[in-house]
Structure formats: structure tokens, C-alpha cells
């Protein structure tokens, strides 16, 4: 069945490796700038101080990018993010419950690593319970999933608000510290642990990339091609939970820009493969976070918040790309 009117074959597509290389170079330059601009005084202190912050920025950027891309692949939707589905609201609620039950002092003085482990475990169990049935229930409707997710997210936030009203004002101050995303007060004592968690999650994730490529073409096609759908979606959800817990524990809820980062990555990556999309998304996340933090520190002198800078700048870039007609 030859097509008489078929269009001529376009030139071979652009090479995704080039896109990754360019983004990596930009990230490298930003890192250089971040470490050196405005440095006065003892270098060993500055490098250690800024290095920790930079490390946290990179870890969080990677966790947010990876979790959002995975989530959007298994939901086959480019608007849903773990944040919209209430994942980080759940984490914040969990912290509030802990402070409510055991008191702020106990929570603060408790071993940070053990705390992180407990929080992540509880969160994974909850997420599996709540979100598992949405994927495997009798009615697999995307709109239902979205609706339930948004309602649950609101419920978690309201419950947190309610708990906060009940507790001691001093303990509230402790909580507030945990709630608001900020890289100025990174939880450095769990930096190492988060790094290990991320590495482990990545080891699993990177081996799953070919499977996720298939999941992106839909459940039925994936099952037809021999993918164990239930198992793979559960693994993916578990990874998302782990990644969101990690980034939220480090700096508070920052998944706000996951949507932006993932969609920018889809727009500029000339490939459908996760092995290309994930690095691009992670590099864009790093650029957003490092660039945003530099602007925050050097230009705005901490007079605004990182999320405002990222969403403002990123939003403009996104709209420009859409207007240039690269999007579909």
C-alpha cells in the first residue's frame, strides 16, 4: 500500500546526545558561577559551605525530575505530577503528626537519619494504599485518578493546617522550618543518606528505562508486548514515593517545578526514550535550581523565594517554546 502523497523523508532527527551535552555545559558553567561569584574570605569555608548547598540543589533537582517523568509515564499524562497528586502534602502531614504526637523537641533531637527512614517507610505504605487502587481498580479512569489525587492533596493540607492549630506555638515554629522549601537551611545531616537513597533508586530506575518506554504507549500495548504491568507500575510508584520523600525531607516541598521541568524536557528532547528524557529533565532542573538560587542570593538578596523565580523564568521559557510551535 504505497502512499502516493507521502511527504518526503525528513532529514534524520537531531541527536539527543548533543542536547544533553549542551545542557551539561550550561550546568557546569552555572556551578562554576555559583561556587565563585561574590566569594570573599576563607576559600575552604566558602567551598564547603556552598558545596553542601550545591550538592543539595543537584540531588533535589534530580529527584524531582526523575519522579515527575516516571509519574507522567505511568499515568500517560503530561499534566499530572506527584505534587498535584498530593505526594508532598502527605509528607508534610506526616511530619506534623509526628510533632503533634511526640513534640517538636523530640522530633528535632531524634536521630535525623532514623527519622528520615521512618518517614519514608510510612509514606511508602500510605502511598501504596491510597494510590495503588487508583491504578488497579476496576475503573481505570484518568479523570478519576486526577480528581481523587487533588481531593486527597487538599485533605492532607487541611489536616496539616488543623494539627498546626492544635499544637504549641513553639513547636509550630519547628514545623514551619520544615514546611517551607528553602536551600538556605538544608538538612545537611541527612544529605549522605539521601544521596545513598537516590543512588539506589537510580540503579533500579535506569534499568527500567526500556520498560518505561513501552509503558508510555499505553497499558494495552505494554501488556501485549509482555510487560508485567501491575508489577512495573508498583515499582515505579514506589520509586516516585522514595524520590519525593527524599527531596521533601531535604528542603521541604519543592515538587512545584516538576511539571515545568518535565514538559520542557519533552519539548526539547528529540527522542521518546527515557534514557534521553531523564538526563535532559534532570539537567534542566539543575539549571533552574542553581540559576534560581544564584539570582535569589546575588540579585534579589534573599528578598523573594526560589519558587517564584523558577516559576516566573521557567514559565516564560515554556510559553516561548510553545509559541515557537515546538510543542504538540
Amino acid at each position: 500500500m504505497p502512499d502516493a502523497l507521502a511527504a518526503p523523508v525528513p532529514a534524520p532527527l537531531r541527536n539527543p546526545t548533543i542536547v544533553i551535552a549542551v545542557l551539561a555545559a550550561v550546568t557546569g558553567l552555572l556551578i562554576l558561577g555559583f561556587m565563585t561569584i561574590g566569594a570573599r574570605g576563607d576559600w575552604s569555608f566558602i567551598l564547603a559551605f556552598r558545596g553542601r548547598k550545591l550538592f543539595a540543589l543537584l540531588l533535589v533537582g534530580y529527584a524531582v525530575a526523575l519522579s515527575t517523568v516516571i509519574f507522567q509515564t505511568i499515568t500517560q499524562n503530561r499534566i499530572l505530577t506527584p505534587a498535584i497528586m498530593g505526594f508532598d502534602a502527605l509528607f508534610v502531614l506526616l511530619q506534623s503528626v509526628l510533632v503533634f504526637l511526640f513534640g517538636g523537641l523530640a522530633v528535632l533531637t531524634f536521630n535525623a537519619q532514623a527519622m528520615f527512614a521512618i518517614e519514608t517507610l510510612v509514606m511508602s505504605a500510605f502511598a501504596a494504599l491510597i494510590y495503588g487502587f487508583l491504578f488497579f481498580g476496576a475503573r481505570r479512569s484518568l479523570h478519576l485518578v486526577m480528581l481523587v489525587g487533588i481531593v486527597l492533596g487538599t485533605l492532607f493540607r487541611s489536616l496539616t493546617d488543623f494539627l498546626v492549630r492544635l499544637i504549641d506555638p513553639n513547636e509550630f515554629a519547628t514545623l514551619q522550618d520544615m514546611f517551607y522549601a528553602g536551600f538556605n537551611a538544608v538538612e545537611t545531616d541527612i544529605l549522605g543518606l539521601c544521596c545513598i537513597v537516590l543512588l539506589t533508586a537510580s540503579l533500579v530506575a535506569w534499568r527500567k528505562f526500556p520498560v518505561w518506554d513501552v509503558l508510555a504507549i499505553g497499558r494495552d500495548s505494554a501488556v501485549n508486548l509482555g510487560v508485567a504491568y501491575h508489577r512495573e507500575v508498583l515499582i515505579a510508584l514506589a520509586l516516585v514515593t522514595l524520590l519525593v520523600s527524599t527531596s521533601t525531607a531535604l528542603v521541604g516541598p519543592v515538587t512545584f517545578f516538576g511539571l515545568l521541568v518535565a514538559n520542557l524536557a519533552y519539548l526539547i528532547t528529540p527522542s521518546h526514550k527515557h534514557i534521553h528524557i531523564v538526563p535532559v529533565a534532570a539537567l534542566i532542573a539543575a539549571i533552574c535550581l542553581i540559576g534560581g538560587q544564584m539570582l535569589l542570593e546575588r540579585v534579589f538578596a534573599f528578598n523573594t523565594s526560589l519558587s517564584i523565580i523558577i516559576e516566573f523564568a521557567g514559565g516564560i521559557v515554556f510559553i516561548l517554546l510553545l509559541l515557537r510551535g515546538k510543542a504538540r
Partner: protein
Amino acid sequence: MIKLNQVTKTYDGTPVVDSVSLDLPRQGLTAIIGPNGAGKSTLLSMVARLLPMSAGTVTVDGLDVTKTPGDTLAKKLAILRQDNHTSARLTVRDLVGFGRFPHSKGRLTSADAEKIDEAIAFLGLDALQHRFIDELSGGQRQRAYVAMVLCQDTEFVLLDEPLNSLDMKHAVGMMKLMRRAVTELGKTVVVVLHDINFASCYADHILLMQDGRLAHAGPPVDVITPEIIKSVYDIDIAVHSIAGQLISVYYA
């Protein structure tokens, strides 16, 4: 051989497919026809383990489809459903390449590339292979998905209304292609069709479904008769033999 034993699907107690038992022999083109809501697509989905059965068993070469690992089955049986949609930005060649996933697990070898070339050529998609599937017409996209399923290189190929959104030329082309898949590639093709004339002209075997049950089965001459069609579709038709083909006239 695909064996169905008492296959049943009920929704809230209402049977959609009602204890269907049959054997689909190797090699040959089997068409499933029947009115809307007869359970054709549901039956096909259950055979291909896309939908759980309420009762009954399906075996493919002796392998129970609900218990056999998905990737083992994916090398024996391929299915294409009616509505296929993806938000991923894929070219035709990317999509067809997914058909090799059961064999190569995503790492395409040069042997896979040959299979992909063959499937693309078989469907006449050479000129379109670097186009994005969201830029194609409905018919072209349909052919790309069929190419993916053929590229899976399975003995059994199940297609749910593959003629949807194809014009006359491409519909005939698709049916001829399925015939060739049977005769040249030795495949067993099961296809849900709406047009009973396509079924009578191309199929070796017709399964006529009604209200979730298998009403009639057999070669076209036995199934496509005015009495049977009247009893199932509830319309009066005349069946003519034109140039050796059974043609039902039901348009007026």
C-alpha cells in the same frame, strides 16, 4: 492452537460474553462478526489477557494466558485493540520497533532492525517511517500500529477492527495483507470485522456472535446465509454469489 473453554465475562451480573468454548485452528484467517454489543472485542481482549475473565480458561499452545508470564506469551500472541493513543512523541519507526520488545527488551540488534524494515515494507510505510505518528492520518496511524504488531513476529495475531478509519483502498489492502500474512508468513490471524462482506471474501472461518454467545461458526458459505443473518442482525438481506464471492446486499 488457541482453545477457549467456557469463557465468560460479566459486569454486575450481566454477561457480556457468555460461556464461549471454541478452538481456533492453526493457520488461517478467522473473522469474528456480530452486531454491536455482541461481545466480539471483549472476547478478543480476554484471549489476549488484556481483560480478566469472570470464568473459563484460554490456552495458547497449551499455555494458560492468565498464568503464563507476559513476555513468554508476547512471543506467541500479539493483539491490536481499536483505540490506540500515546502522548509520547514517536516516529513510525520507533513505534514499529516496540514490536521487537519481547525479543530484545529494548536493545535493538541489527536482526531487529531487519524485522522492523520488513514490517515497514509489508505495510508500505517506507516513505512515512521517520514521520511522527501524531502527524499521520488515522489510516496511516492504523497501519503503523499493525506494523508494530506484525513486527512482534508472533504466530497468532489478533486484530480488533483493523479496518476502522481505513478507506476502500486501504481496507482492501489491509485484508489482502492479512491473507498474505496467513499464506506467506504462516500466521494465524483472528480479526474482528464489521463488514460481513469482507469476512465472507477473505476469511477461512467465521465466528458469528450474538448477545455474548457464539451463535454460528464455520466457513463463509455456511454462515453467510439470509436466514442466519436475519436471525442475528434482524434485517432482511439477500446473499448473492458475484464472481465466486458471497456478497450480502444490505444497504437498501
